[in-house]
């Protein structure tokens, strides 16, 4: 079957050709997103890339702990609040060559409510960093800040675990992100009104899925449909399936892609999966990354495979 092959992401406007911004989201907390992001960053650095990890989970920052670092003295909050001038001033060494961190440690909830101008400033400075990959750990949930970071990234990675609640949150995240993208793509007018309806509706009311929304817009504002279709075509979230236990779990990633394509009209793809592995929680207890402490464990091998696949712009295909 030809599950859609992921298209190479469009480069950021002012970027050098190689520099990428990747974001890792996950609608639900406690699914191992931070650990996965830290490990992925470490693995990319192992592969020779210059990486900056960014902990954008303000109020819930964990990356420094995953990396076994003490609370860094300078954090993203310092940059946002202009206590330092440059984002380079808050970069922290991690002990792994090629891997640095912008920590969110000790930034409390107040810092989580950054306004639009602050958000743009952070994004611009991240884009200007002279590195290969900026890897952003977004918080859990679907707030606009989280979604906007997800949308401006070259790669939007969505972490899911094979549980119904996680899948449900994943869909919620994807739909919210898409509706927000559609809203940004359309001008003021009747189409926008319908999109706002879709965004503000509770589950089960209004439009069941983006395809229904598109059909409704076609009735009242046909030119907007083209803009929306273009926005949908360039929205290509990638699933990472974490904490896989049963072998049948692996197929869930493919199922999610099929469901997104067929029923949401979204060109999702399946970046990879990582098994639940005792090596992971054991390393966590020692405040070390499992990719460092147990590099030949199954989870470590799978993170390495994931990193290589992402660098090549590949995703998992159905095997026929």
């Amino acid at each position, binding site marked *: *079957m*030809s*599950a859609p092959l992921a298209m190479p992401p469009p480069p950021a406007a002012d970027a050098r050709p190689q520099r990428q911004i990747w974001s890792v989201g996950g609608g639900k907390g406690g699914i191992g997103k931070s650990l996965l992001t830290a490990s992925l960053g470490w693995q990319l650095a192992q592969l020779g890339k210059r990486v900056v990890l960014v902990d954008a989970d303000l109020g819930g920052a964990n990356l420094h702990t995953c990396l076994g670092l003490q609370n860094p003295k300078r954090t993203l909050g310092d940059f946002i609040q202009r206590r330092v001038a440059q984002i380079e001033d808050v970069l922290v060494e991690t002990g792994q060559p090629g891997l640095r961190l912008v920590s969110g440690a000790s930034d409390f909830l107040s810092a989580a409510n950054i306004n639009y101008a602050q958000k743009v400033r952070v994004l611009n400075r991240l884009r200007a960093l002279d590195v290969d990959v900026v890897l952003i750990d977004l918080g859990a949930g679907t707030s606009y800040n989280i979604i906007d970071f997800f949308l401006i990234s070259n790669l939007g990675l969505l972490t899911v675990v*094979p*549980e*119904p609640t996680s*899948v*449900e949150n994943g*869909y919620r995240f994807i739909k919210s992100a898409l509706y927000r993208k559609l809203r940004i793509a359309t001008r003021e007018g009747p189409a926008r009104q319908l999109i706002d309806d879709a965004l503000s509706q509770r589950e089960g009311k209004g439009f069941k*899925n983006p395809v229904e929304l598109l059909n409704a817009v076609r009735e009242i504002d046909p030119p907007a449909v083209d803009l929306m279709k273009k926005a949908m075509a360039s929205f290509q979230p990638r699933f990472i399936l974490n904490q896989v236990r049963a072998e049948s779990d692996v*197929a*869930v990633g*493919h*199922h*999610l892609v*099929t*469901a997104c394509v*067929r*029923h*949401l009209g979204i060109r999702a793809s399946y970046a990879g999966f990582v098994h639940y592995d005792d090596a992971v929680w054991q390393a966590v207890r020692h405040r070390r990354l499992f990719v460092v402490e147990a590099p030949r464990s199954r989870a470590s091998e799978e993170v390495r495979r994931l990193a290589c696949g992402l660098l090549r712009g590949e995703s998992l295909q*159905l*095997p*026929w």
Partner: protein
Amino acid sequence: MGPLLGSHYEILGLEPTATFEQVERAYRYHIGVYSDSALATYSLLDPGERQIARAQVQEAYDVLKDPLRRRTYDVSIGLAPAPVPVSVTHDAAPPPRGVALEGPVTGAALRGFRERSGVSLKDIAERSKVGLRYLQYIEEDRHNDLPARVYLRGFLLEYARALGLEPARTADAYLATLPKR
């Protein structure tokens, strides 16, 4: 109309040139996607919709796995030209079942038809119980390696049947291309 849209091929996520094995695997995959225990479709479709989706997958599979039904389906959706109409003979023989090939029925012609139908030689071997080796010889027009006529005709009938071709006509047409012994 169910939750799944498009042709049988699209429902199974296949190209029209899909092989029998691909049809099998796609079927099993999609039945899994819409099963009641599937995580991915649990919150997107309600149980009734999932049941209809599974029925749609089943129907697509039932058609595409059967070469004759698939051939008829391909014609009906404009994927393949309609078979050449057969003229009725005066002795009121029953109308032949299956498609008749145009032009000389050489091994190459048979192979072309088989490949366009998306059927592998292995499938034919399994279905017809004719040895793979002989099927290859037939398609490669290796006249010197073919068995005696009496056996060959039997193989050709089986081959034709497996592909949804009119058996007797095809077999005799192929035999007509062989050098006289």
